[in-house]
């Protein structure tokens, strides 16, 4: 049985008290309501299991803390409860790549064939 609106408090896990993101313990639908730090929260988009959302409003350039350590920096401001992922944060070490990254070096030569 999965709730469609009201989600119990165990839907999110705070891995360390210093963290500014929480992790979903199961896939959650858009509009799901839950409690975060004692305050109500409505999800503005669906979130799969294992993804991160902001514990509070954060600014561009802020370090993201998970497991109590910095895991990268925000590229854009995020609202409390918003999804934190590759669209708004980046590594402080080596940038992550996507399935499309392998095509980038050949994209210009391929354009003439498409």
């Amino acid at each position, binding site marked *: 049985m999965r709730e469609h609106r009201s989600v119990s408090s*165990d839907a999110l*896990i705070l*891995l360390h008290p210093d963290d500014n993101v929480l*992790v*979903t*313990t*199961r*896939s959650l639908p858009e509009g799901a309501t839950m409690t975060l730090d004692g305050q109500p929260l409505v999800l503005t988009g669906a979130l*799969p*299991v*294992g*993804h*991160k959302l902001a514990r509070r409003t954060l600014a561009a350039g802020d370090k*993201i803390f*998970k*497991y109590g*350590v*910095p*895991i*990268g920096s925000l590229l854009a401001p995020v609202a409390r409860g918003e999804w*934190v*992922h*590759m669209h708004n*944060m*980046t*590594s*402080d*070490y*080596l*940038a*992550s*790549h*996507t*399935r499309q*990254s392998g095509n980038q070096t050949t994209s210009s030569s391929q354009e003439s064939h498409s």
Partner: protein
Amino acid sequence: MNESVAPLQGFVRSDGRKGIRNVVVVAYLVECAHHVSRRIAQHFDDLDVHLIGFPGCFPNQYASRMMRALTTHPNVGAVLLVSLGCESMDRDALREHIAGSGRPVDLLVIQETGGTAATIAAGIEKVGAMRTELAGQSPVPMSLDELVVGTICGGSDGTSGITANPAVGRCFDHLVAEGTACVFEETGELIGCEDIMAERAVTPELGELIQACVAKAERYYRTMGFGSFAPGNADGGLTTLEEKSMGAYSKSGASPISGLIKPGDIPPSGGLYLLDVVPDGEPRFGFPNIADNAEIVEMIASGCHLTLFTTGRGSVVGSAISPVIKVCANPETYQRLSEDMDVNAGKILTGEASLDDVGEEIYQRVKAVAAGERSVSEALGHQEFILTYKSFEPIGPGCLPVRQV
């Protein structure tokens, strides 16, 4: 405390190590001998006849060392080498090395045996005789302090670092306390963890070597243009390499780090060891580990009898030579792929089990598989194997402070 798991038994080898399996290995010495070797191995359709090999024709010290280590791994009982005839691998030296270990070994050179069909027929006859010989061998009692266990994560996601990886860490702590040598690796996925890891080293010098080893990995991957981060990691909620690193790091548990080894170095005693899999020197041969199985093979070359493989997205692989135990981190993945998994660590997220419960379950699986029970991927016939070009300098004296004289 002691559950009714069968006691460990091992096949004694001339170097004193014991194997939890007694497999016949068919090894091709260049890609040109791969097909013939595969046909020989496939003929038996046997969970204990394994195919390994090196595809390259150019000489490589690392590949030669790996082939020597793998063909004399304690889980290997007998070896058939298959050569085309003109490749660089020193087949006679390899054969002598294996014979010197007391194992039955034979060599077929395709160019001298009459080609494909004749070599397949000759190979089937030789492997058949080796199986008969091994069937007559009896294992002897073995204890946990004679076991070497590796761990790897593959297809990681946002659940891996919360469930399966820390649960393997608990199992590792348990095994280290029993005197088992435990090996974790992939320094390219420990970037960001170097300082906390160095603090766990048994000597300050080892701590500095660990930091330098992770710095080498970062430099190497930067040159390659990609970090050790797959698109599936992002699909599963991991955003950055250091986030993935923190999750991966928890597989190591909380024991002190006893040493830093490279592929082919055998842990000299029980304890926790970091395996450095990133080549030394300027990047020359491409990515350090092109897929998970390359790392598994390197852990096996360092003596691992079995590998604990954690996965969130859902890897299905096993390995030649040493069984792989699958620990699934993600409860939704487990629902889809339960028939490929040994342990469901996703239970931690659904509240059905604690980290300690799953750590204990993994520990019991290690003992059962070491005692001869087939792991899930092993029973399904998974025997993946990859070996590519690399180059390493030997480890320095500070890497193994606990080395026994």
